[in-house]
């Protein structure tokens, strides 16, 4: 019988070991799968991962993907710090894109210095509104925010489809998309020779800013308090409703910002496929990073690499389904690794005469250990 125990405190080293180990195991399994399907695993991996993680153009491509990824992960993390689940990142991302596109199409004659900020403001306000609306049912009637945010995704994605097929459709193209933005609505390139645009600076500023706000301001302290123990927060005189709304609006606004940057920095028009499931990946990244903004930056970078490698593998001729499967494998193992960092698994034998004695001994040992742990914990105290 497998016995599962909760580790009371998690050591940094355990977490890192579990992380590395799970990635290695997932790679090993991927190798076996590729071998069985007669692709050359070593070649595929060395080419793909070597290019994305160790060559300049690959790294720059990763940084480009990191922009929406990090903002979307923040958009999960901020509400989660306040104790709320934002599963509507994908929808909020598109809402931001809609807001930006609307302005870009309506005022093509404005100069860049006015047009781009206007696009940002409009996208952030619209997506923030989505966050606000998704929180009302939770506060008024206790309907889970998980439901309302998930459902908001579908509504917004269908709305995008309506816009690109009908209202804002580009008459010159057969594809489902809006006309291309004027140059004034496009973000300038930050690093010449790559696609990395000025949005990168904005994303880094957001990560650092949110980190600072959470750690050093009254607002951040109260927000974390509400998330860590809502009853305790109420006891300390904090208005938890305020933080429900604010954290959701900020989170949704960040996802919206990612949407704005994506249309004005990379795609230059609204399409129903501008997000490579950023909103959903963001969820995984935020939690693997334990909701820490700085960790989101690093985990997000590794994850961007995974996304970019996926495209590269497809270019090498691997079917997209295999690529998706490999990505899934790696994610699955990283998440399973999480389980091992928080819980301890031990094998306990069941029944049988011989093992019974062992079991007894084991229990004695366990008791002994418990006593020692117990002493360690409480001697510090009493």
């Amino acid at each position, binding site marked *: 019988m497998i016995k599962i125990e909760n580790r*009371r*405190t998690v050591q940094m080293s355990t977490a890192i070991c579990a992380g590395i180990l799970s990635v290695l195991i997932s790679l090993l399994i991927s190798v076996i799968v590729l071998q069985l399907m007669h692709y050359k695993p070593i070649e595929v991996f060395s080419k793909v991962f070597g290019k994305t993680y160790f060559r300049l153009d690959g790294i720059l491509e990763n940084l480009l993907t990191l922009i929406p990824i990090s903002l979307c992960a923040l958009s999960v993390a901020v509400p989660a710090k306040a104790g709320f689940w934002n599963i509507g990142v994908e929808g909020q991302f598109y809402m931001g894109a809609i807001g930006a596109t609307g302005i870009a199409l309506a005022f093509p004659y404005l100069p860049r210095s006015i047009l781009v900020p206007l696009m940002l403001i409009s996208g952030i306000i619209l997506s923030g509104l989505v966050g606000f609306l998704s929180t009302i049912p939770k506060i008024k009637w206790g309907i889970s925010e998980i439901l309302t945010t998930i459902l908001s995704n579908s509504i917004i994605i269908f709305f995008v489809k309506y816009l690109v097929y009908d209202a804002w459709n580009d008459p010159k193209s057969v594809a489902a998309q809006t006309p291309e933005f004027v140059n004034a609505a496009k973000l300038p390139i930050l690093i010449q020779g790559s696609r990395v645009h000025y949005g990168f600076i904005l994303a880094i500023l957001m990560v650092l800013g949110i980190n600072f706000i959470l750690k*050093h*301001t*009254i*607002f*951040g*302290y109260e927000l*974390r*308090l509400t998330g*860590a*123990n809502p*009853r*305790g*927060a*109420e*006891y*300390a*005189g*904090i*208005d938890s409703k305020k933080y429900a709304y604010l954290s959701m609006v900020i989170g949704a606004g960040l996802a919206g910002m990612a949407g704005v940057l994506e249309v004005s920095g990379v795609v230059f028009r609204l399409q129903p496929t501008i997000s490579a499931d950023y909103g959903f990946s963001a969820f995984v990244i935020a939690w693997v990073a334990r909701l820490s903004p700085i960790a989101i930056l690093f985990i997000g970078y590794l994850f961007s690499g995974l996304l970019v490698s996926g495209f590269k593998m497809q270019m090498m001729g691997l079917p997209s389904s295999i690529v998706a499967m490999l990505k899934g494998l790696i994610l699955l193992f990283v998440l399973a690794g999480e389980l091992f960092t928080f819980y301890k698994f031990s094998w306990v034998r069941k029944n049988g005469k011989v093992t019974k004695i062992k079991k007894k001994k084991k229990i004695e040992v366990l008791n002994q250990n418990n006593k020692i742990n*117990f002493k360690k*914990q*409480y001697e*510090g*105290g*009493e």
Partner: protein
Amino acid sequence: MEEIKNVLELKNIVKTFPGIIANDHINLKIKKGDIHAILGENGAGKSTLMNILAGLYSPDSGSIFINGKKVKISSPKDSIDLGIGMVHQHYKLVDTLKVAENIIIGWAEQKWMINSKMLSDKIVTLSEKYNLAVAPNALVGDLSVGEKQRVEIIKMLYRNVEILVLDEPTSVLAPQECQNLFKTLREMKQQGKTIIFISHKLNEVMDIADTVTVLRNGKIINTLVKDDTSPRQLARMMLGKEMEAVAKNTLEDLQKAETVLVAEDLKALGDEGEIALNDVSLSIKKGEILGIAGVSGNGQKELAEVLTGLRSLVKGKIFIQGKEVKKYKAIEFINNGISHIPADRIGVGMIPDFNCIENVILKTYRKKPIKKGLMLDFKEANKIGEQLLNEYDVRMSSCYMPAKLLSGGNIQKLILAREISCNPQLIIAVHPTSGLDVSAVNMVHKFLLKEREKGVAILLISEDLDEILTLSDEISVMFKGELTPKQIRKNCSIENIGYAMMGIDKEIKEAKV
């Protein structure tokens, strides 16, 4: 031959929890076919003892004999296999399943398939035999509390238990339902089953039990045959000796003092929507300790929450230093100098995952040295926090360790440090020492008395009569959401308070100040 008659025997059972001994060398013999009551105040160790029988806790030492044979109970399953069934105070039922499905959880005659016809027939037979009306196909979530209890009892009968343990079975029942329950218990006794009945209500014990064992502070005081004892004798044994009072204020002192808080006709609902406070009025003066005694669950928690803005009022008014409170929000009460030491230390009184510093500034961060504009000055917070934690002798390996790793006593000292650092007018302390070891109890008392010296009013809500009698200047008793008029400490004896707590007589109401 007498050995065999004891269906259950406990020898030298010891169980300790961090800082307290819950069961101290318990020796108990229970006769077959007896209704054996275990009587004691909350925290006397009754539930711990029964959880040992049910396999939920394992004792540190001691042995258990069933029908004269030594047994080891290391899991609830062992306990069921030995024929012991426990009905917990908080029922262990699944609301979304049917009655019949609940009954076979964990122990079914048919291992793989459920023959619902056979099952409901059996349930109906059992329920008719023991006068326990339940519908096998009803959803448990739709049942009343009394019906849920019947389901729990049938669940045990279905498992063919020989020893039925009932933990405070009447605490949630209406008097009519109690009588029905007693009828069932008598019927079960007729059938030769043994019943262990845990209670702190004297009159019920006198009504149903054959034998009574009194527990106090984890020790067995005595085991008596019911017919040889009286409620007064049992109450004496339950409550223990009277302690010397440290209260100094006389009636004149109190009449002279300024009033800090007045509450008029407070009415509030409990978590389940029941009326928890019924027209409660009280007033408390500067430098006074007002003790509110009572068995918990009689509205004390709700009273404390209402007086700190955590629960909304249905009716009534609260005045702090003559000014009526308009907004019933926690922040309003905090700003008016009301500190709160909550009953639920870990769930409400602190943020378990935050470090000790972040916990100790939980209420003072809104004020100057720590607050710097929109920012929190953590350097200042660390300085102030560290000083406070040292002053209140909170023992920890580091100020930056998560507060959840502190022991109970140290958690309470941290909470006290924080609440007192707010410079309060009034401290509302709810069960401030429950579950703490002696040295921590003394510390808490010392800090509270020191505040009283400074002129802070203290509302002490506690189940521990000794504590109430030792510290309070005036005493009131809470019973079923109502508060008896307060009396000066000198006029109170442990007996008349004890009776008011158990609702067995109303003398205290007549003996007004």
